[in-house]
């Protein structure tokens, strides 16, 4: 078949596989119970591990006696920090002392504990039941110290210190931008002031954390199979902490039951278990139980914003000022540090709006609570909530419609470089907003609201930076700068390919979508492509999966590697067909054709046969075997996905409970590789955002005791609380990524709290009460409604 203008030449950039909702490659094993999660791994002679954990939030260890534990039937060993002598975990920022105070995280507590659930000692036994017996027999005594459990206690004059070397409990204090015109704008404009808070949340992957470690004498290597989003970073910390070369550590990630960020930091438990396996020369398995996961797993999102915004009378935002405090808990996580939440918030708070003047102070405080990790959305659910509340409050004050005030402020010309010195690539901010509004109008929700005083409508309009490359992360001044990704692709004699990525699939469907990208580029059937991830021996280096970086950066590396392999195939084919390389091309069907005579064709199998088995026939410029590698990094400030969420809620006047009647998401993540997967990411993300808006919070008693140690107390929403959600797609292709895709992992979670809170406040407006914190407690809604009804009855009488 000749290439003619009517039949565009195969270019590997779209059509057959990209954009198709193909069935997931992951599903056959997962629906039949044949996935291999870390707890499914059973090695010969394997022992089990568990941790003696701190029972007080803040205290000096006055006695630690493991002798009785070691005597327990079935217990093989018990170790304290002193026994293991491991190096601490240290995560740093390259910032001056007035901005950043470094702290360290020991693998097992040494001398002092800083939160309930902190690992103090490790018990190893023949079965998990004996582990529990051993933990119970361990003797630990504490001299209890006053606990730091709130911003007020942390910043008090005579506050107890969580870290002695961090006076004032402030680990990060950054004032940014402070652009000219802030004070003038506030002096002249209509000023909106508000204080917002969001509760501490658990990302809560349904599979808890866990690891199986074993030492291999032949490989001289520690094999650690762990459910981690960042295996190469785990390897680095393991090697440092155990003081062995990195080549002596292999980290493998099996199937992973969700992560959402909680598993993108290195856990001290996986290090301790690996150390024990090395000492004992026997495999050791540790599986976190749910109580541990709730009380002592990495948490997130406890933030307070004190914000002012100035507007002109016609609703133009003229200045923004915010003071942000993030409670980062007891320790700084590796590799992101305690800066993860405050620095994200400070850099990106202006959101999708044109902000002419901006000043922000962002602080990370340390407290006697479980430490934090980046959780899906990282600070964006919080600052988007602030910005969207500001828009609604200003609209009320100025007598504008909430959509209209957003229309007047949203960025419409791209690329746009904001006051925050971030450049936003093209998106569909206004278009998504207008479509979101149209959906609710067309369905008659505005009329229904007229008739029902307990019904409220809320919007959130936002963008999400995805694919942070190394340039974008370098602006944070981390000493460990994530960014690039690498891929290697190899074609075998059967024309099948194995492609690697440094990203980690744990629900995002990479095995399917990355295969779609490669199949498209090479012009082979999807079934011919197999993705491999999560093995530090197979993948030279990688930064794992977080910050919606997989398809943008990892997917681009994979695409580039596939393109290079295609070029190699063409070089060999041209030689074998005795023509110029410019005169051949991939045919989109597993072969290379001669362009001026398409009847002359070589299949990939035929080319591979020469590349491996008859290499004497290769041209001089081609090396034997068929393999290509590529590295990819997103330049500049990355790429921004965007969306508008439009929500209708109804409050129950008898209970104050909020029910979501309609949830519409209009999203734009550039070129969609697999629509079903993108819809799934949006819906799942929104469910987690609703969880934060209405249900989930980890609270603490004054002594630092966490309230939620089981699912009875930590309210994870079920199918009864999460509504059906429609997802509409707009498509603004990204110019920097190979497939034109932007990240789609976090947007749902980012937009939901703002939209739900705005909808609730819409119905509460008549009561005179506005709620500015999440989760929204039914008691607060009920109180507002009841007070308003009483007042109405009073004035009527």
């Amino acid at each position: 078949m000749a290439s003619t203008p009517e039949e565009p030449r195969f270019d590997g950039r779209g059509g057959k596989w990209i954009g198709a909702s193909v069935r997931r490659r992951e599903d056959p094993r997962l629906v039949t119970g044949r996935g291999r999660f870390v707890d499914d791994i059973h090695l010969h002679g394997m022992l089990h591990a568990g941790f003696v954990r701190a029972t007080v939030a803040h205290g000096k260890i006055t006695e630690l006696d493991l002798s009785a534990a070691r005597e327990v039937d079935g217990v093989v060993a018990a170790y304290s920090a002193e026994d293991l002598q491991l190096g601490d975990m240290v995560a740093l920022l390259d910032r001056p002392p007035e901005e950043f105070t470094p702290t360290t995280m020991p693998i097992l507590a040494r001398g002092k504990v800083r939160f309930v659930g902190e690992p103090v000692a490790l018990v190893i036994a023949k079965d998990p039941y004996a582990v529990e017996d051993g933990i119970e027999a361990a003797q630990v005594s504490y001299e209890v110290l006053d606990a730091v459990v709130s911003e007020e206690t942390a910043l008090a004059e005579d506050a107890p210190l969580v870290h002695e070397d961090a006076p004032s409990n402030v680990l990060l204090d950054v004032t940014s931008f402070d652009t000219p015109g802030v004070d003038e704008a506030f002096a002249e404009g209509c000023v909106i002031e508000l204080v917002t808070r969001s509760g501490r949340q658990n990302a809560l992957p349904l599979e808890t954390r866990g690891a199986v470690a074993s030492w291999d004498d032949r490989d001289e290597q520690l094999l650690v199979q762990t459910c981690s989003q960042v295996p190469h970073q785990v390897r680095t910390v393991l090697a440092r902490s155990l003081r062995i070369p990195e080549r002596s550590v292999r980290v493998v990630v099996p199937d992973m039951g969700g992560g959402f960020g909680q598993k993108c930091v290195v856990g001290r438990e996986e290090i301790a278990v690996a150390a024990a396996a090395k000492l004992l020369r026997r495999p050791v398995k540790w599986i976190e139980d749910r109580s541990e996961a709730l009380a002592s797993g990495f948490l997130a999102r406890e933030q307070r914003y004190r914000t002012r915004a100035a507007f002109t009378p016609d609703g133009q935002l003229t200045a923004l000022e915010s003071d942000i405090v993030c409670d980062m808990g007891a320790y700084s996580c590796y590799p992101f540090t305690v800066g993860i939440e405050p620095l994200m918030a400070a850099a990106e708070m202006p959101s999708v709006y044109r902000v002419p003047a901006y000043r922000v102070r962002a602080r990370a405080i340390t407290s006697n609570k479980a430490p934090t990790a980046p959780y899906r959305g990282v600070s964006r659910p919080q600052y988007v909530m602030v910005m969207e509340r500001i828009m609604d409050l200003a609209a009320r004050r100025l007598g504008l419609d909430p959509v209209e005030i957003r229309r007047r402020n949203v960025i419409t010309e791209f690329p746009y470089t904001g006051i925050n010195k971030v450049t936003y690539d093209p998106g569909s901010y206004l278009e998504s907003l207008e479509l979101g509004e149209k959906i609710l109008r067309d369905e008659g929700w505005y009329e229904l609201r007229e008739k029902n005083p307990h019904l409220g409508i809320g919007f959130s309009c936002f963008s999400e930076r995805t694919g942070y490359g190394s340039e974008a992360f370098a602006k944070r001044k981390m000493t460990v700068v994530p960014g690039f990704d690498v891929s290697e692709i190899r074609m075998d004699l059967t024309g099948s390919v194995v492609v690697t990525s440094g990203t980690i699939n744990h629900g995002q469907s990479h095995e399917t979508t990355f295969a779609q990208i490669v199949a498209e580029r090479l012009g082979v059937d999807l079934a011919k492509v197999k993705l491999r991830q999560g093995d530090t021996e197979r993948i030279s280096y990688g930064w794992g999966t977080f910050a919606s970086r997989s398809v943008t950066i990892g997917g681009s590396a994979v695409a580039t590697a596939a393109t290079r392999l295609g070029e190699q195939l063409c070089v060999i084919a041209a030689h074998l067909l005795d023509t110029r390389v410019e005169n051949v091309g991939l045919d989109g069907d597993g072969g290379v054709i001669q362009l001026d005579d398409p009847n002359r064709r070589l299949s990939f199998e035929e080319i591979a046969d020469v590349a491996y088995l008859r290499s004497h026939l290769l041209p001089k410029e081609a090396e034997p075997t068929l393999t290509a590698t590529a590295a990819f990094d997103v330049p500049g400030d990355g790429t921004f996905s965007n969306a508008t969420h439009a929500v209708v809620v109804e409050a129950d006047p008898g209970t104050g409970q909020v029910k979501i009647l309609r949830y519409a998401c209009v999203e734009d993540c550039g070129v969609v590789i697999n629509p079903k997967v993108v819809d799934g990411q949006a819906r799942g993300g929104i469910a987690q955002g609703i969880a934060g808006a209405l249900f989930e919070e980890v609270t603490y008693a004054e002594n630092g005791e966490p309230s939620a140690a089981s699912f009875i107390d930590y309210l994870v929403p079920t199918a009864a609380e999460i509504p059906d959600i429609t997802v509409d797609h707009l498509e603004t292709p990204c110019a920097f990524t190979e497939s034109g895709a932007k990240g789609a992992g976090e947007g749902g979670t980012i937009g939901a709290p703002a939209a739900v809170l705005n909808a609730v406040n819409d119905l509460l407006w008549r009561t005179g009460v506005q709620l500015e914190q999440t989760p929204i407690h039914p008691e607060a809604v009920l109180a507002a409604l009841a007070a308003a009804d009483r007042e109405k009855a009073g004035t009527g009488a």
Partner: protein
Amino acid sequence: MTDKQLIVLTVNGEEHELLVEPRWTLLDVLRHNVGLTGTHVGCEHGVCGACTILVDGEPVRACLMYAVQAEGCAIRTVEDLGTPEEPNDLQQAFSEHHGLQCGFCTPGFLMLAEGFLAQEPSPTREAIRETVSSNLCRCTGYQTIVDAIEATAAQRSAESGKKEDAVR
């Protein structure tokens, strides 16, 4: 406490002689002793439902039952539904409707749905949603799980209707 007992469990139609401690849960024994790891450990409090299996046809949390209590019962786990080559209709529907992402909770939802559909072959979407609310999923937002079960129920009803027609 650690005195072991010899019990016989019938799992997926096969008998297993097992030496167990009375305190071992059915969940642990299925996973560690029988070697069927498709049933997952989510919370061990009976809330999340990741360990849902069928005991004499009823959906049961395997973490809330001791292995010794299950002697003489017919136990059915996800491994009995279908294979990767030949998944059953419900498993296919979960895949078709993208009713799973990480897949950790999926075996529990499948067994819950199998037990539910056996008792209630033609449920409304609301009834399916209510049943689905027994288990936790952190990835999907549940909608596509409800879709998958609804589609399976409709397909099974249509097929049994056809069979009845054929008998007539």
